[in-house]
């Protein structure tokens, strides 16, 4: 009875602290979390572990910390009593699952910053239990909502990111991952911070979530190089499933340009193979850089590029054949390496490459011709004669889906072939294009705003004040530019190198 009244009064104490200044509220929550951790370690909560109605005393939106700790204890108890790691109570629609779902949908994001480890364990449990029950969609939805609730910017990479994308792929609920995937990741959880600095007031309003999503907070388990690669590979796969080729290319580009000193991860090789195919689907060609054969983004080291090219030979041959525009040879190459596509699980992408060959060939013709009749177009595209009845609807479909910027001119006579005009006289599509461009610019602006906020935070964490960067910049100009930037790379890279030199 004493413990119960103690618990109730400790929670009530926090309710009355809402109006306090941040630093005092911070102290109160820290005390409350310590109190609950103590109760947990001393097994004092054992008596409530089987009491289902005990959680009714707490509202997860207001008493997030007590609710979370009691729920954790009850889950542990159920797991101890059952040989199964995911007994019925924890699985979807089980009693504790329902409680967990209630919590993850309504917890107070500020309070949970102080109990990051317990929050993360619950999120992981929900994800794993949904997988065990073959209902990953349920886990994915809860994990996504919980992540966005804790950190709406999702700018700090955590182990939950990988869990979410994996669940979404398993559930085939690709768009469920988008609210997180579409956010820019700007940080890893930072370590304890500068030794001289005061512990951060977690409950304060922070410009960037990196201030409270720290390594010490426990919101993320230990992240490895592999986790990071997998997240971006899986993210790329989500975009591929949704046919958002440009975003898929971006994600795969991150994987294949990962710095590597000696060995190359198989994940990177896998991403490279997909990158070649997605490049064909998006741009209709191999992506060239500085006249070299199919290298990935500029920051990829040359030895890694060589490894890719030797391990992904059939893909490069396929891409070159595609570029040459010979459908017969393309089909022959695809048939010859059928085992490779199948073993790499890229058969679906390769099939789409064939499908996109027609549209890309027609688009290329637009660079040479101003207009073509359907009959002439058929002759140009297909190796063997194909009747205009096949070409006509295919071209019309391309134009209507806006994959091809052209117009069709039919004639009165059915027997007479329609004309395809590449240089459209319609002014409105151009206007519509401008509207699209304007909305793209808006999106880019939002992205820039996010990046600027996070860049400022990164500078702070690295101890880079604006004055320091300015003096560094001036110093580089004075010392002569030829040696400062031998690669002609981005300024951010030079800055990092100089920073490291300064610290050593």
């Amino acid at each position: 009875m004493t413990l119960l009244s103690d618990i109730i009064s400790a929670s009530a104490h926090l309710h009355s602290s809402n109006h306090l200044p941040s630093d005092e509220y911070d102290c109160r929550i820290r005390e409350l979390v310590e109190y609950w951790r103590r109760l947990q370690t001393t097994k004092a909560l054992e008596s409530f572990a089987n009491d289902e109605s005990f959680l009714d005393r707490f509202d997860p939106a207001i008493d997030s910390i007590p609710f979370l700790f009691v729920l954790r204890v009850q889950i542990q108890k159920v797991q101890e009593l059952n040989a199964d790691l995911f007994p019925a109570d924890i699985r979807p629609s089980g009693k504790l699952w329902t409680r967990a779902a209630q919590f993850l949908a309504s917890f107070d994001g500020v309070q949970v910053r102080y109990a990051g480890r317990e929050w993360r364990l619950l999120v992981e449990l929900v994800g794993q239990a949904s997988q065990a029950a073959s209902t990953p969609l349920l886990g994915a939805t809860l994990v996504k909502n919980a992540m966005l609730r804790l950190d709406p910017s999702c700018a700090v990479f955590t182990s939950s990111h990988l869990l979410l994308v994996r669940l979404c792929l398993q559930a085939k609920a690709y768009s469920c991952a988008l609210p997180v995937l579409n956010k820019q990741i700007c940080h890893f959880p930072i370590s304890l911070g500068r030794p001289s600095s005061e512990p951060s007031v977690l409950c304060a309003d922070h410009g960037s979530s990196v201030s409270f999503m720290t390594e010490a907070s426990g919101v993320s388990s230990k992240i490895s190089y592999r986790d990071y690669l997998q997240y971006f590979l899986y993210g790329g796969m989500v975009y591929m499933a949704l046919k958002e080729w440009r975003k898929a290319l971006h994600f795969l580009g991150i994987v294949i340009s990962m710095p590597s000193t000696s060995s190359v991860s198989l994940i990177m090789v896998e991403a490279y193979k997909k990158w070649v195919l997605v490049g064909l689907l998006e741009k209709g060609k191999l992506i060239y850089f500085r006249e070299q054969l199919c290298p990935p983004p500029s920051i990829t080291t040359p030895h890694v590029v060589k490894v890719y090219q030797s391990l992904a030979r059939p893909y490069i041959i396929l891409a070159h054949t595609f570029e040459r525009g010979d459908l017969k040879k393309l089909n022959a190459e695809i048939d010859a390496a059928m085992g490779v596509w199948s073993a790499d699980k890229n058969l679906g992408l390769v099939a789409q490459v064939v499908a996109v060959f027609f549209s890309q060939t027609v688009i290329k013709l637009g660079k040479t011709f101003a207009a073509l009749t359907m009959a002439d177009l058929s002759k140009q595209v297909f190796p063997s004669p194909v009747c205009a009845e096949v070409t006509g609807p295919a071209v019309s479909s391309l134009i209507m889906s806006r994959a091809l910027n052209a117009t069709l001119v039919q004639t009165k006579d059915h027997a007479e072939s329609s004309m395809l005009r590449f240089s459209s006289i319609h002014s409105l599509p151009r206007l519509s294009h401008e509207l699209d461009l304007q909305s793209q610019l808006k999106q880019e602006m939002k992205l820039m705003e996010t990046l600027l906020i996070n860049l400022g935070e990164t500078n702070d964490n690295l101890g880079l004040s604006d004055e320091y960067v300015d003096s560094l910049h001036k110093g580089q100009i004075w010392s002569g530019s030829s040696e400062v930037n031998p690669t002609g790379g981005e300024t951010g890279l030079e800055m990092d190198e100089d920073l490291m030199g300064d610290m050593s």
Partner: protein
Amino acid sequence: MELPLLTMEQLSQLVASNPPLSQLFEALSRYELQACLISTGSNGPNAGGDDSTLLSMFYSSFFLVHLLTDQVLDARSEARALTKRIPETLLQYDPSLQNCLTLLRAVWQTQHAQVYQVLRGLPWPDALQPLVRRYESFFQDKTLIAVSRSYEAIRLATAAIHLGLDEQLAEKEDPNIISNFTKCGWSWDSESKLLHPKPIVVSPTEPQSSNGIRKAMAMLGTRAC
């Protein structure tokens, strides 16, 4: 906000109330979790013998609502992903879901005549009729916009096929068919027997302003050095 239990009555009521698309999509997205539990038999004591009818109705409705969200996302990919989440046995044997698959194929291959045929000719349950009709009207409008932008001159019969109008009447130059297009500002040349479409521009949902661009440029200016 607590969602009422997924039942036939609840679903029929939701569909028939004709709510804004975003609300309908949101509600059905949330119901998918319940549908998922029902299909795995984890919905506890409420599970009944009519589960397959309920699931068929739910997934068919959600499928059509996916197709209706075409302005926002590539609806075809989303709808296709949904069909991968439907329990395999249900998908294989349920007539409504089979209709959905045929519809998806026709939409995917932009076979407009086939799309109208599936929507009008195949048997759809009464409860789904409001969504089927809504999609038909949506598809017709969307195609009209696309045709107006894609053709400089088009035969009346071809336009009629795209819009799901009577092709034979179009061949006979029926004035009613012609007026369907001329009222959109298209011109009909009776000599050449061709329609000349006037491109239709859809105004963006959000008001566009050039302030955004100025702000973006200013931001770039402060960072470029």
